């Protein structure tokens, strides 16, 4: 069964007089353990698609099934739960809480999920090991390098064992070395069975990802599997 299944999906923004169709007639199927890149120029609707996949936003019309659930019609509170349980976000600018330590940042989604202190601690330590930053637990984001911050963000994204990892230009703010190590982590996660969707306009990355979805003006122009 597909993890993500979109059919005839539209997203329209109503900015006063002008109606902007950000996404038009989108059909996407993403299977378990697929590694997909969504590429396209800016303004092509990548971010809008990303927000809808990530349940931060809802489509104007059409169907969106995540893990078989019709999340396109969910209310904000239910969407928050879905984001907490099924989605792991990795952002271009990391989006770590600046005042909290690496440990606390990773812990946050588990707090929202109501996990006990003991379980959280175990999981945070596991994840810090996983991204190779066990010695940075007590460091704040400002004390970490860009690459380290993004690894913490990945660890946070994995906290609640999500069905899907969503990364929005994860290497956009990193130098090529750090960026390369982040992509390497994604590859490892993919090998271990994770489903990953990555948005990028970096050709080098897109070419190394098994499947790509190309967007232009809100329409899928090319889909490579």
């Amino acid at each position, binding site marked *: 069964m597909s993890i993500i299944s979109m059919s005839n999906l539209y997203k329209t923004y109503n900015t006063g007089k002008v109606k902007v169709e950000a996404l038009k007639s989108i059909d996407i199927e993403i299977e378990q353990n697929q590694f997909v890149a969504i590429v396209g120029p800016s303004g092509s609707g990548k971010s809008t698609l990303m*927000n809808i996949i*990530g349940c*931060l*936003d809802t489509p104007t019309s059409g169907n969106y099934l995540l893990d078989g659930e019709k999340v396109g019609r969910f209310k*904000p*509170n239910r969407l*928050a*739960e879905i*984001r*907490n*349980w099924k989605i792991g*976000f990795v*952002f271009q600018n990391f*989006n*770590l*809480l600046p*005042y*909290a330590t690496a440990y*606390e940042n990773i*812990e*946050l*989604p588990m*707090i*929202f*999920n109501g996990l006990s*202190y003991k379980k*959280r601690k175990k999981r945070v330590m596991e994840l810090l090991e996983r991204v190779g930053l066990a010695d940075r637990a007590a460091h704040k984001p400002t004390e970490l390098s860009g690459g380290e911050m993004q690894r913490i963000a990945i660890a*946070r994204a994995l906290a*609640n064992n999500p069905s899907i990892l969503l990364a929005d230009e994860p290497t956009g703010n990193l130098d090529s070395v750090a960026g390369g190590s982040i992509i390497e982590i994604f590859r490892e996660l993919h090998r271990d069975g994770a489903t990953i969707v990555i948005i990028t306009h970096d050709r080098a990355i897109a070419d190394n990802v098994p499947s790509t979805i190309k967007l232009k003006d809100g329409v899928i122009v090319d889909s490579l599997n």
Partner: protein
Amino acid sequence: MKFFLFLKQFYRDLSSQKLRTALTTFGIIWGTASIILLLAFTTGLKKDQKRRQHGMGEAIIILWSGRTGMPYEGMPKGRRIRFVEEDPEYLKMMIPEIAMASPEYTNWSSTIKYRDKIYINQVTAGNAEFGEMRNLIPKPGGRYINPNDIANKKRVAFIGYEAKKELFGDEDPIGKIITIDFVPFTVVGEMIEKDQNSSYSGSDRRKTFIPYTTFTSMYNRSYLNNMVVKPHESRQSDYVKRRINEVMARKYRFDPKDEEAIWEWDTTRGDQFFDNFIFGMNIFLGMVGFFTLMVGGIGVSNIMNAVVEERTKEIGIKMALGAKASFILWQLVSETLLMTFIGGVIGLILSGVIIRGYNMLNIEEMGSPVISPEIAILASILLGIIGFLSGYFPARRAAKLNPVEALRL
């Protein structure tokens, strides 16, 4: 960890707005202190005034007989009405709402003697209920005149504390023999000191009280000076007064509508006036305090708005990670509540210190201000409401943020 994180954020929010936080907390402190102090002072004043007012008796009615103001059944107006000794008992029998009633005789200038000391002052006579109605409380070791004294026309006396000082100095008067107009009496009780700010026949502290039965055997009197009655409950006083007029009108044959045949002083009237006065004052001062507190609350609300503004991005991140709107809402509301709570506690402590300091000055006329449980509860409820409201609206704004837009910042 959750709570720790909450405190950390709270600290961070406040320290990023130091001056504003300080001023706002000051506003809450000031508001709390002003509400508490204003109400504490009026409560103190009220208690003190009540005590003085009730020096003469609480919710009693004093009755004097007058002259008829209307012709009745062929009799002309201007006819003298006079109460007799049986009237109080008669009233009590006819009007069940009356709890206590006593005749009162006064001899304005009696010579009271103890050994070589002479004291010339009033002698007042009533029954055993008179003492209770008129707040004549004996010092420990003594007693007031009792029904047995009345029945047996005993020559016993209960003396006011000033009369006692004149006659006995520091000596214990109980059991000592004094003479009143050359008739020997045994002192059975001395009145405890009391504040009395009203009277109809002079201050009780200078008087000597004896059984009315003994009084009439000494002085040749056919009529009472006045009566004192007390209803079971003060709110019955108007009804009781009307009934007294009716009962007496039938007995002495005057028009029940005649308002001059019997004169009365209803002390509950004064109580009511004073209660209303204090109530009005409380409302006024409470409003002053409330608005001061509200200004503080608006300050808190303002800070929380700035916090939401500043933290929009962070709220977006949390929402992306799965925080529900209610989590965002309650985090901000509880931060506000904590802030008002801290300000409120400081304000409460401050008022406590000020009141303690004031009470040490011993300014009697104002009474002693007290922070009663009612005041503390009222202030806490107000603080809670203001804290909640000033946090709720900014917090709701935060909780309603669109995560996509919040993250874009």
